[in-house]
């Protein structure tokens, strides 16, 4: 099967997750040619051909199905055999179910390239050309220790994301909705989910909180099915609310105090992780002090969503430099945080080019 055939099958099966045009762009930008895996092509006078890994081993996390779907999809685009280590029993079974449903929905020629495992198979893991893993830092360290020295290991450990609202006093309902989309998509569980909203000094926090609260409730109403709130999650949300109340922080709660979302204005500018599940911290900081506020998570910030005139340089170059110096690997408009294009550099790395090797014919 050629790359074009696999591309067509993938795009046909999951057009929203793998739009055809984006797959073509991905191959062109990251491999140089759409047929780079099947035929020689010339670049700078040299004949080149990409070689796909024969065996890819995907270690999926229990929090998010989309990272697993994308990872498997890219492996299929390359034509590799894909072994998928499903999330373990200690995790919520819904992610595992969704991964299996995704695999089941693949066309037969692609489905036969996927094999699922319930437990980690160290021997098979060592046989893989490339291991792609999602999860905690501890999981990454454990897996790395099991890999061969000459094995590609692409680790996606702990990361977090933020929203920056450039002109909060002029926040439009549409921009507020975009922020709410970023926060509530996937129940805030992914590393692209913002855990805090930073705003510049001089922001009218009361008015901003009201606008965001209204947008959050609208967004929450649209979500079906609603994410579950078992005891372990409910307790974290309620704890965050009560701690904030006791500290005298301003708290915005949904009507009837349902557990869908919570906005907390924390006057402390220093980043603190959110308990997730719709709990977002609003922090006000002078641009000059943003670096200090985020110092504890420097190198771990994946995406910064910008609510403002993003495309027209809505953030100052000084602010942009602050984010770059903190190791941020992606800036995007608010509302797009959870939907990076397939061509993005996940944690700064090219998602497809990272997987292949090259043959040069001089």
């Amino acid at each position: 099967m050629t790359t074009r055939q696999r591309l067509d099958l993938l795009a046909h099966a999951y057009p929203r997750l793998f739009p055809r045009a984006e797959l073509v762009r991905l191959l062109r930008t990251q491999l140089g040619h759409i047929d780079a895996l099947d035929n020689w092509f010339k670049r700078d006078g040299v004949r080149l051909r990409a070689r796909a890994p024969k065996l890819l081993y995907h270690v999926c996390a229990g929090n998010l199905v989309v990272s697993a779907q994308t990872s498997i999809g890219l492996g299929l685009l390359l034509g590799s055999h894909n072994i998928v280590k499903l999330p373990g029993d200690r995790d919520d079974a819904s992610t595992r179910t969704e991964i299996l449903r995704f695999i089941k929905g693949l066309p037969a020629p692609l489905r036969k390239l996927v094999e699922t495992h319930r437990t980690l198979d160290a021997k098979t893991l060592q046989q893989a050309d490339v291991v792609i893993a999602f999860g905690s830092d501890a999981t990454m360290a454990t897996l790395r220790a099991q890999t061969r020295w000459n094995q590609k290991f692409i680790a996606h450990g702990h990361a977090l994301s933020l929203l920056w609202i450039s002109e909060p006093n002029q926040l439009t309902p549409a921009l507020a909705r975009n922020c709410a989309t970023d926060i509530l998509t996937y129940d805030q569980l992914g590393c692209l989910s913002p855990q805090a909203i930073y705003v510049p000094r001089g922001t009218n926090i009361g008015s901003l909180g009201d606008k965001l609260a209204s947008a959050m409730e609208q967004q929450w109403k649209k979500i079906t099915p609603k994410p579950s709130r078992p005891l372990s999650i409910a307790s974290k949300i309620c704890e965050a609310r009560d701690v904030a109340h006791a500290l005298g922080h301003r708290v915005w709660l949904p009507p009837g105090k349902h557990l869908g979302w919570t906005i907390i204005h924390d006057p402390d500018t220093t980043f603190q992780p959110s308990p997730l599940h719709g709990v977002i911290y609003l922090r006000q900081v002078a641009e000059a002090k943003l670096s200090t506020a985020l110092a504890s998570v420097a190198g771990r910030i994946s995406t910064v969503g910008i609510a403002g005139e993003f495309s027209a340089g809505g953030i100052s170059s000084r602010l942009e430099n602050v984010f770059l110096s903190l190791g941020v690997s992606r800036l995007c408009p608010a509302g797009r945080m959870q939907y990076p294009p397939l061509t993005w550099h996940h944690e700064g790395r090219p998602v497809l080019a990272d997987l292949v090797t090259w043959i040069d014919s001089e």
Partner: protein
Amino acid sequence: MKIAKLTDFSQTSVRKAWIRRLLEPISETTWDELAREIFAWQFASVPAFRRLSLAHGVTPKSLKSWSDIPAVPQQLFKREKLFAYPKPQAATIYETSGTTTGQPGRQHLLSTDIYRAVSVEAAQRVGPLNNNAQLHFLTPSPSEARQSSLSAMFGFWQKHSDQPGSSFWLHKDQFDFDGLREALIQAIAKQQPVALCGTAFSFVHLIDAWADLPCLTLPSGSWILETGGFKGRSREIAKDELYAHLAQLFTVPNYAIWNEYGMSELSSQAYAHGTHGLHGTPPWTRVLVCDPATGREVALGQHGLIRWYDLANVDSVFALQTLDLAERTPLGFRLIGRLPRTEPRGCSLSAEDLAVSQAAHSLESIA
């Protein structure tokens, strides 16, 4: 609707009178009155508690039932000084271990008088403490661990029981298990009942240290008291396995092994005996098993989070919301343990992950 008078707990005479009232028989009506009294005091004198109560729409004037009083999350003791007095310094500060987030919680006490009185009384009324047993503690002494409420409590017990030979067997982070064994052998020779008290992890160290030694047969009337978790300080073993080991090692029945359930943020404790025993609480406390989403008690047989109301905790906040999971039963609660981190795991950074990563970073910096 009753509005409680405002008692000033900084007065020594008031504190003495309060202790007397707590230790007297307490009817439901009296309990309600005492709860209103302490709530009025702490609402007036602990700003964080007042803010939380107001956020829940509860004030001393509007209070319908003591169970409507909101409980402060345990986490708050890590973020805020919860001390009911304008004085800058508390006489005693007890610290929690801070193992989960790396930051300890602090309990500030104006005086240890009430803690001393109720921790001895509770252990006698619903726990195993009596004046017959020689007490052996697998913890540092109160003078060596001034910030430990557990060491303090054991110190109160030691003073109260006044049994010769009672001792602390953890010095400068080193267990003196040889010394303990010698003391136990002497007690056995005299048929002197003994009590062994320590944290779960200290007992694991003891079991490991004595793995190759013969078991001891403790005299009749002896008991063992285990408290707290493992907190990464030893290998972890299940409670029933731990109790089975202890029962074998010391030749005591399962019911002679007690669990103490308490915390630095409170003044009172609950006790259970045997592997599956229900926890009993002293009459000046109430424990509710609550659903955090509704704030109300769960139905009988259901699981929820433990919420304490401890009338002895006058110096900080008497209503405490824990993250400890329990089953509500008709006769009390069955402690299941710390609420497990059961949400889906993945790449998103949590507070616990950040604390671990910062701790690792600071260790690297030191190295």
